[in-house]
């Protein structure tokens, strides 16, 4: 487990120095751990565990938008688990329950643990429709159609810079909408 967390820290450091592939690998690596913790939190709150995917996406968005608060000299896992714990409590509270979430929920998860069937996430997709057209088009192009920033720029006759701006603003307003709902 220690090894896994050291690997995360290394990947996050590479991500911050501009390695997009490392960032992608890191998010892929933490998602199952977050999913398992979300399911445990939901189960303990007496809620259907198949809603875990919405929580996972909520956490991933927060990790992305707040990653500048991570201190690159500190290990990544405690920071990640603090964000995750906060988002999990928030989602459970929004679902009408207040519950104590133990930080060990996250730390104890084994890397190989694969959760059972999970319902597809719907909240992010629903909020996506409420975004301004430009942001929505860019997000959809990159997320659903797997287009690169370059291809997206060409498709909408935008500059790559404008695509990047729309992409980031889109992600930020998605997060704001999720928080307000």
């Amino acid at each position: 487990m220690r090894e896994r967390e050291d690997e995360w820290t290394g990947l996050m450091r590479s991500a911050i120095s501009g390695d997009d592939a490392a960032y992608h690998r890191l998010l892929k690596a933490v998602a199952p751990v977050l999913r398992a913790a979300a399911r445990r939190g939901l189960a303990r709150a007496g809620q259907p565990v198949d809603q875990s995917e919405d929580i996972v996406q909520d956490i991933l968005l927060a990790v992305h938008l707040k990653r500048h608060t991570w201190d690159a000299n500190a290990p990544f896992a405690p920071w990640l688990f603090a964000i995750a714990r906060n988002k999990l409590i928030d989602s459970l509270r929004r679902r009408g329950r207040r519950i104590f979430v133990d930080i060990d929920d996250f730390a104890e998860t084994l890397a190989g643990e694969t959760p059972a069937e999970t319902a597809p996430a719907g909240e992010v997709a629903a909020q996506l429709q409420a975004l301004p057209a430009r942001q929505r088009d860019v997000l959809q192009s990159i997320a659903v159609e797997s287009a690169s920033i370059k291809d997206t720029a060409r498709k909408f006759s935008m500059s790559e810079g404008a695509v990047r701006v729309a992409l980031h603003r889109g992600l930020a307003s998605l997060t704001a909408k999720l928080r307000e709902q």
Partner: protein
Amino acid sequence: MDTDQLIKTLAADNAHRARPVSFVLMLAMLAAAPVSLLMFFTELGVRPDVMTAMRNPFFDLKFAVTLALAISAITVCLHLSRPEASLRGFGWYLFIPAGLLVAGISGEMMMPQRMPVMTRLVGNNSKVCLTAIPLLSLPLLAAALFGLRHGASARPAVAGAIAGLASAGLAATLYASHCTDDSPLFVATWYTIATALVTAIGALIGSRVLRF
């Protein structure tokens, strides 16, 4: 959008770099400072005998206390803008201004005084003090909360309260140059009540706006 698609999208946005929280906080406070200064100079102004007052160590002590409060509170709230941070190891920063004040009170007690303790404590400006410090601190508090929103505090109410302390510390620094009550007893009483009020406002607003 499934989670893999979201991850792909986040990775595509990896090039985006956000400014550090400290930078945004400082910028916001610098932008708000002129508002508080304008309020101060139009409504209160520096006391006329400031040149003589500066030779009084108890006048100077007021600034040491209020600035110590502002600086330590800013340090603590920047620390709290990280999600995994707790007050542990940082809480003692907030005792620095309190310690200075206690030292000032003991110092004053040991000196011969013309006025009785209660007169010094009650002073002449308690009402102005209780109004001016909270009002002067409001623009700074708004700025501090705006700056902290850029962070990710796991304890929004606590972070908001500390932001309240920081802005009250700065506002009290301004007010101290106007007020003619220099006794540390006056400061310990009225400045503290005014600061507590701003802290409560900070906690209340912080618990709403600092959630991330």
